[in-house]
């Protein structure tokens, strides 16, 4: 048990994320009230939560992929493609909602499978494999779609527009996915093996784990969730768009949310809970800055500072992971020293 070390050093990284989220909440509430608005109004809370859902879907998937020791840069393009397939298949016909959703998710899963197979079987690092896959999809989208395409029917658009009280349906679905991802990670063999493969691939191999399987699974789930994000975007926009994903910058933003949530970029350590905290922090920052009507370029500066500071804090904590035996000023309160003194006579 670590008894000494500062209060800060004793917190887990997940606790720090939520502490920072709380701090953001307080600072945000104060700042927003200075311009005469209420941060906690039903409308504003609903708007923050809406902001969490698209990024949330993608960041959950990204967490799984990063934990497995890979990376997915193709998510924004998968989301764009998904919005186009959904809007195109549905074509404003309520009867086509189910086939539209299934086709979209099927296509996303196939892309994820391709990503996973390239990473696991061809031994291409996830960064390169998914960068390539993203370029392929982006090229396809750019040549075949010049603008928005298709239309989603009203019944489908309601998913993106309604909520239970201030909580949007989309956020509830996102949280349900988060719950399933946690169940997968902590209570199934697949989840345990995913941590093992990301933590140390040779340990996983000598323990008899089929090391391809967790990596491929993580990529498929990640693409599926990017597909979900695309569906949600199609529902909100009412149409499919070839650029909706890349405009959101979801590739790097999702990685940032995952890392902000305390997950090790090298894999093997991290939680979905932490990622959700990271997503919440970004959503609140966005909301505060748009309510305050801050220059959009400054938004990116703030996001950038938050990410760098967070990761610097985690890096420091990784170095000082050993409790001190003596305080740096003197041994006065160190129990080891007292024991030694008691022995002395």
């Amino acid at each position, binding site marked *: 048990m670590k008894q000494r070390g500062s209060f800060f050093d004793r917190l887990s990284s997940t606790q720090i994320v939520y502490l920072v989220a709380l701090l953001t909440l307080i600072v945000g509430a104060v700042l927003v009230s200075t311009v005469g608005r209420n941060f906690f109004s039903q409308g504003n809370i609903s708007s923050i939560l809406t902001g969490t859902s698209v990024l949330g879907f993608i960041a959950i998937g990204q967490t799984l992929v990063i934990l497995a020791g890979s990376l997915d840069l193709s998510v924004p393009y998968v989301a764009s493609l998904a919005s186009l397939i959904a809007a195109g298949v549905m074509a404003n016909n309520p009867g086509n909602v189910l086939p539209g959703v299934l086709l979209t998710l099927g296509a996303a899963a196939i892309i994820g499978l391709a990503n996973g197979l390239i990473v696991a079987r061809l031994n291409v690092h996830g960064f390169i494999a998914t960068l390539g896959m993203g370029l392929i999809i982006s090229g396809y989208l750019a040549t075949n779609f010049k603008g928005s395409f298709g239309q989603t029917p009203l019944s489908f658009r309601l998913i993106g527009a309604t909520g239970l009280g201030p909580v949007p349906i989309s956020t509830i679905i996102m949280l349900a996915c988060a719950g399933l991802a946690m*169940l997968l990670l*902590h*209570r*199934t*063999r697949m*989840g*345990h*093996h995913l*941590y*093992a493969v990301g*933590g*140390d691939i*040779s*340990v*996983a*191999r*000598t*323990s*008899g*784990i089929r090391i391809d399987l967790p990596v491929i699974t993580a990529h498929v789930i990640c693409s599926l969730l990017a597909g979900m994000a695309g569906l949600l975007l199609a529902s909100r926009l009412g149409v499919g768009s070839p650029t909706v994903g890349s405009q959101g910058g979801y590739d790097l933003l999702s990685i940032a949310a995952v890392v902000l949530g305390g997950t*090790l970029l090298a894999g*093997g*350590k991290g939680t979905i809970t932490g990622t959700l905290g990271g997503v919440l922090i970004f959503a609140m920052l966005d909301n505060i800055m748009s309510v305050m009507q801050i220059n959009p370029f400054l938004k990116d500066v703030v996001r950038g500072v938050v990410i760098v500071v967070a990761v610097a804090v985690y890096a420091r904590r990784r170095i000082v*992971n*050993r409790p*001190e*035996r*003596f*305080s*740096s*000023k*003197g*041994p006065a309160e*160190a129990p*080891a*020293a007292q*024991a*030694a003194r008691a*022995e002395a006579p």
Partner: protein
Amino acid sequence: MENPGRTGEASIPGGRPQGSADPPPLLEVRGLTKSFFGIPVLEDAHLTLHRGQVHGLVGENGAGKSTLMKVLAGVYQPDAGTVLLDGREVSFSHPTKAHEAGLSSVFQEFNLLPDRTVAENIYLGREPRRGVLVNKALMNAKTAELLESLGITAIRPTAQVRTLTVAEQQVVEIAKAVSYDARIVSMDEPTAALAGAEVELLYQIVSRLRERGTAILYVSHRLRELFDLCDVITVLKDGRVVSTGPASELDDTRLVRLMVGRPISAFFPDKLPPADSGADVPAQPILELHDAGNGQLDGISFSVQPGEIVGLAGLQGSGRTELLHAIFGAAPFTRGTMKVEGRDVAPKSPREGVRARMALITEDRKAEGLSLNQSILNNALTVIRSVFPRRTGTARTEIPGVFSSLEVVARDLDQEVQYLSGGNQQKVVLAKWLAIRPRLVLLDEPTRGIDVGAKVAVYRLMRKLAAEGKAILMVSSELPEVIGMSDRILVMRDGRLAGELPAGTSEEAVLQLGTGARTAPGGGT
């Protein structure tokens, strides 16, 4: 909690003696041959293991011990030869096949995930389930039971492996090996990272396993352990078995002679006369510490004279490595004074330490001492190039001479260090530090995991440096080494100096100071 009696899978079927008359040996290896890139590393090796027997396997680095172990573990496939388990021929295409047959291995490198719990590590790949979900309660209970059966109660199944001591991690590693219903456990230098009382823990586990009828293949460089633990000792040399027989028929001298063809007296070379005998050197200490301390150390006062080799003994975690790091500036002192050749020096970083002409040979050469995928020459020039760039040219011309005097065996200086044996890698680390012409040499476990021949080379080098008037401070967990090489021995305990002992003291005296025991600790070794 709710599962007593249903956890038999994790324990060993030791209490089931087979009634058959004159059973075949548990494991028999015949004519095993293996070569890499055309170079034979194992030739016609044979080995026989019986139930409840501890079988020692010794030899210099490169003698083929690790290769033999890895063939048995299913990591390598042999080129020729047979492995018989219970009289039936087996071959393991994958480590899991070996596990299924009841043959587990504990390798030198830790095979644990530091960010996962003890139970998650032990049952990795075989997590008990209820339906599709992992049954964590059962997994933790089985782990607790397994550890208890090895006599370990201090390790919680839910503890993160990162938070355990090195010795505890080693125990977890062994528990993991045993958990595969192992009838044979092979261990590659299980005590390499352990000291003093921690080794006792390992002895205890080994004897528990032996009582259950488990056969143990025990690889070690520490001769003392082999005689303490083993029933039979097999000696490998250059890939061949040169001797196999009861441990009681061997002694240190004969064992070393079998391994290297050299008598043990060559082990610790004699002191050399000072190099510049004419000039009377002003006896100013090279290093002086007065009441120095930081977060891990307190009240450290001692000095080291030119030409002196001072040994630092103590248990794992007693602060020996931390002391070297503090002197070098890697984890600086926060109080007290430190002088180098009479001048106040307080290095706040390794760079400042090097500028004060100190060298630190770290205990983990692969992680902290070498860039494994770079050439020998690049490694040897790392320090001088970054701290004294103008002297790089001179150093470069001296390197070949240094290597030949250290007897480095390598194809050429462009060879990547990862392909060198442990002993040769260590010599590269030493050469790298000698290039700065240090006044104070800090050695942390300088002979860990290297063969006897390389050890002797390191010892000779230490004597030579001392004769040149350099001061040497050496941390070692091998007591014979500390006692055989040091002019004085400082013993550490709980971050403080527990006392000083003269050259040629007894191992018992060092242990007594290191553990704080008032009387000799039981004479268990």
